[in-house]
C-alpha cells in the first residue's frame, strides 16, 4: 500500500516536472519530504554529525583574528622537507599508484627509525601501515579491532575524534579523567594524573582497548614510565589492546622523555602505535600517518585500508621518505629535526606561558606537544547572559574571538558529557606559531590586563 502510494507520488513528480519551474520545484520539495524516510543515514553515524572544529575554524578564519586555536603550525616546514616534495612533484614516475599499504621507500625508512627507537626489528611490509594522517590510522585501527559490545577506555580530556570513532564502530566509550593533584603554585602538565584505582575500575571483560595519547593533547602531559607501567599492567591483566597515539612523540621538552608503551614488557604484541608526518615535520597538510605494531594486528588494519582508500598519495610518501632518510642518518646529531624542532618550540612554550602569566593567568605548562591549557575563570568574564546550556569555555572562546580577536579552543570539547563541567574553565592555546603571531597575541593579552586593572 505504502509502496503504491509512493510510486504514485513519484510518478506525479515526473509529470509535474514538465510544468513551470516554480510549481515543479515546490512539488519536488514536498515529494522530497516524503522521500526523506528512505534517504536516512546509516545507524553507525547517528548522532555523529556535529563537529566543533567546523564552527571554530570558521570563526577563526577571519584574517584579523590571531589564531592560536586549531593545531597547525604557521611556521614554515624545514626547507629540505619542502624541497623533497618539490622534487617528488617533478618526478614523472611518482604520479601513479604506489604500494597500497605504504610506499616501499617510506615503510623501509619508518622501519629503520622505529626499529631504532623501539629497540626491535620492525618489518616494513607487515608491521607498518601508512594512512591518511594519524587520523586515518586511528580510524583504521578502531574499525579493524573494535566492534559492538566492546568497551574502549578513553582518558579525558581527549583528542575529540576518539569518541565518535569508537561510537561509529558500535562500541561504548568509557571515560576516565586526568585529575589535577594540588601541588602548590606551579601548574605543570605533570600535575595532571590518573588515579590508578579509578583506572583499574574501568577495566572489565568487555574492555577491548584503551586509547593512550602521549604526549597528550590538550594538556601536554608526557606520561612517565611508572604511569605507563600502571596502564600496561592493566592491559596485560585484562588482555586489552592499547591504541597509542604518539603524534607529538618528538615534541618533548627538557627534563622529559617520550617513552613508547609498546616497548614495555608484554606490550608490543597488544599495541598499535600511531605517528604523524604532519606533527613530525610541521606539514599537517600532507596528511600522512602510520600505524606500527605486530603483524597479527596490523594485518587487520591493512584489510580496512584496502577497503577504504587503498593507496595514499605517491609523491607525498616519496617526499616524506626522503625527509626521513635525511633525519634517520643524523639521529645521533642534535641538528636532527626530531630534536631541533622541540628546542625551537620550547622557547615558544616558555614565551606563551610568560604572556599568559603576565596577563594574570595560570597556564598549565606542558612537558610536551604544542598546546597549553589555561584556567580563564580568574578573568571573571561574566557570560551568564549568553546561552546557559553552552559550556563556559565555549562561550568564553567565542566572546574572546569576537571581542579580543584572539582564538583558542575550549577544553570541554575534549571531554565526555559527564566531565565537561570539570574542564569548562580551561581553554587551549596552540603555540607552534611564528614570532609575529605570538607578538600579536602578546599585544592582545597585555591590553587585556590593562583593561582589567
Amino acid at each position: 500500500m505504502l509502496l503504491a502510494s509512493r510510486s504514485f507520488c513519484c510518478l506525479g513528480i515526473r509529470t509535474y516536472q514538465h510544468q513551470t519551474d516554480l510549481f515543479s520545484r515546490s512539488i519536488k520539495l514536498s515529494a522530497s519530504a516524503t522521500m526523506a524516510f528512505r534517504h536516512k543515514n546509516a545507524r553507525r553515524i547517528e548522532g555523529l554529525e556535529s563537529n566543533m572544529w567546523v564552527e571554530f575554524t570558521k570563526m577563526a578564519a577571519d584574517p584579523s583574528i590571531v589564531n592560536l586555536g586549531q593545531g597547525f603550525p604557521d611556521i614554515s616546514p624545514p626547507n629540505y622537507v619542502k624541497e623533497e616534495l618539490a622534487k617528488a612533484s617533478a618526478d614523472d614516475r611518482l604520479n601513479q599508484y604506489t604500494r597500497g599499504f605504504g610506499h616501499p621507500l617510506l615503510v623501509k625508512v619508518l622501519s629503520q627509525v622505529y626499529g631504532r627507537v623501539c629497540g626491535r626489528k620492525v618489518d616494513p611490509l607487515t608491521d607498518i601501515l601508512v594512512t591518511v594522517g594519524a587520523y586515518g590510522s586511528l580510524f583504521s585501527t578502531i574499525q579493524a579491532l573494535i566492534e559492538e559490545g566492546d568497551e574502549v577506555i578513553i582518558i579525558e580530556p581527549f583528542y575529540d575524534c576518539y569518541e565518535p570513532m569508537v561510537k561509529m564502530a558500535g562500541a561504548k566509550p568509557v571515560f576516565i579523567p586526568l585529575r589535577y593533584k594540588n601541588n602548590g603554585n606551579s601548574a605543570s602538565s605533570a600535575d595532571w594524573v590518573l588515579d590508578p584505582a579509578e583506572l583499574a575500575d574501568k577495566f572489565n571483560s568487555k574492555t577491548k582497548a584503551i586509547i593512550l595519547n602521549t604526549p597528550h593533547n590538550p594538556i601536554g602531559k608526557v606520561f612517565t614510565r611508572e604511569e605507563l607501567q600502571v596502564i600496561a599492567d592493566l592491559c596485560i591483566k585484562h588482555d586489552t589492546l592499547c591504541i597509542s597515539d604518539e603524534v607529538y612523540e618528538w615534541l618533548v621538552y627538557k627534563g622529559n622523555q617520550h617513552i613508547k608503551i609498546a616497548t614495555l614488557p608484554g606490550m608490543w604484541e597488544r599495541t598499535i602505535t600511531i605517528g604523524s608526518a604532519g606533527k613530525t615535520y610541521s606539514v599537517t597538510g600532507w596528511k600522512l600517518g602510520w600505524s606500527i605494531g605486530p603483524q597479527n594486528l596490523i594485518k587487520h588494519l591493512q584489510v580496512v585500508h584496502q577497503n577504504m582508500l587503498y593507496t595514499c598519495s605517491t609523491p607525498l610518501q616519496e617526499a616524506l621518505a626522503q625527509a626521513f632518510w635525511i633525519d634517520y642518518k643524523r639521529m645521533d646529531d642534535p641538528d636532527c629535526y626530531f630534536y631541533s624542532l622541540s628546542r625551537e618550540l620550547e622557547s615558544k612554550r616558555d614565551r606563551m606561558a610568560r604572556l599568559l602569566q603576565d596577563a594574570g593567568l595560570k597556564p598549565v605548562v606542558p612537558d610536551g606537544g604544542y598546546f597549553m591549557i589555561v584556567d580563564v575563570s580568574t578573568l571573571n568574564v561574566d557570560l551568564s547572559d549568553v546561552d546557559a546550556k553552552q559550556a563556559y569555555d565555549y562561550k568564553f572562546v567565542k566572546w574572546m574571538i569576537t571581542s579580543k580577536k584572539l582564538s583558542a579552543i575550549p577544553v570541554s570539547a575534549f571531554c565526555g558529557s559527564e566531565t565537561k563541567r570539570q574542564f569548562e574553565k580551561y581553554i587551549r592555546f596552540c603555540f607552534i606559531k611564528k614570532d609575529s603571531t605570538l607578538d600579536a597575541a602578546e599585544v592582545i593579552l597585555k591590553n587585556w590586563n590593562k583593561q582589567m586593572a
Partner: protein
Amino acid sequence: SLQAKMSRPVQSRRLEGVDKNIWVEFVKLAATYSTVNLGQGFPDFPPPDFLKEALVTALSGENHMLHQYTRAFGHPPLVKILAQLFEKLLGQELDPMTNVMVTVGAYQALFCCFQAFVDEGDEVIIIEPFFDCYEQMVTMAGGTPVFVPLRLKAPENGKMMSSADWKLDSAELASKFNERTKAIVLNSPNNPLGKVFSRGELELIADLCVKHDVLCISDEVYEWLVYDGKEHIRIASLPGMWDRTVIIGSAGKTFSATGWKVGWTVGPNRLLQHIRTVHQNSVYHCATAAQEAVAQGFQRELMLYGKPDSYFVQLPKELQKKRDWLVQSLDAAGMKPIIPEGTYFLLADISNFKSDVPDVPNSDEPYDSRFAKWMVKNKGLAAIPLSAFYCGAHKNNYSHFIRFCFAKEEATLKAANDILQKWKQEKTS
C-alpha cells in the same frame, strides 16, 4: 595470550569476507614477472604538463601554508571550480560548500557512500562485471550485495564485439528491486567492459530508482574517456534523479595522475551531509597541495571546455588511437577483443590460446585467472582476469576473457604487440 582470552578473534566482525583482494596478488605477479604491464589500471605516461606545473608552482610559491590543513570538506578553490564545472554539466545550480566534497581518490568517496547509507539488512544492487571494491565495501557496511549481470549478445556476421553488446535484461533488473533495496551502484563508463550506458539504459535504471525510492551511487571516474563520438550521460541529470544520486569522480583518471589520490562527490546536500559525517570521522582532511594543483587544472579545462586544446578533448583522442592499436594487435594475434566505448580498458577473448593452459578439472580457481597468471609468468604480459570482477558465485560465468589496460605509451603497446605476435607464431609453427 590475546587469542586465548577471547573466544572470538581479535579483529572486528565487519572484516569478515572482505580480507581477500586480488590486486595484492596480481600486482605482485606483475612486479615480479612482467615485462609489459597492461594489468592494473594506471597510465604509464605522465600527467599533462599544465597539471605538473600547477603542483610545482603551488609548492614553490611564497605561501608555505599549502603544507598545512585546508578546509576538511574540500580546499575552497577546488570545490568552487568543481561546482562551476558540474553546474555546467548538469544544468543545475550548485553550492560548492554543500553539494561538493573532496575525498582521497574516488575509492574513499565510494567508502563514504556505503558507510553513510548502508545498514545491516540493506540490499545494494551491483551490476556485473564490477570494479571489485563495490562488493567488499557493501559487505563491510553490513549490506547485502545483489548482483545483476550485463549479458553478452555477440554480434553476427563475425563482426568484432563491442562493449555495447553487453546489456541488462530489463525484467531481470526490475526483479532485483524490493523494499530492502537501499541503493544501486552504477559505473559508466564501466570498468572492466568499457561500456558507456545509453540514455535508454540509464532511463531504465532511473525509472526503477524513482519507483522504488532507491539511491544511486554513480561512479563516473572515466567520464571523460569516451570514444567514437559517444556521449557520457550523467544519470543525475535525468528526471527525479538529482535528489537521489551521488556522483563520484576522480582526478587520477581525469588528469592521468592516479598517484595523487584526489576524488570528489557531487550531490544534494541532503545526501552529502551524511557523507561529510563519515568523512569527518574517518580521515577528515585531504592533503592540501594536490587539491590546489587539481583546482588549477580544472580552471584551465573550464576555460578551454570543448576546444581542441582541452585535455578532456585530447586525452580521449589519444586513448582512442591506443585503443584501436591494441584492438588491432589482439585481433591479429588471434585474441578476440571487445571494442570498448569508453574507459582505458578492454576485454579480449583468449579462447584461441586455451591449449597453452590446460583445464584443471575441479579447480577452485577460475580458468581466466590461471590463464592470466600463466601468461604473466611465461610471456611477461600482465593482464587481469575478468572473473576478478564477478562475485564468488559468478566467477565462472565467463571463463575466457582477460582485461587489458591501454593507457600506455606507444613503446609499451608495441612491446605488447611483439609478445602477442611471437606467441601467435609459436602456436602456428
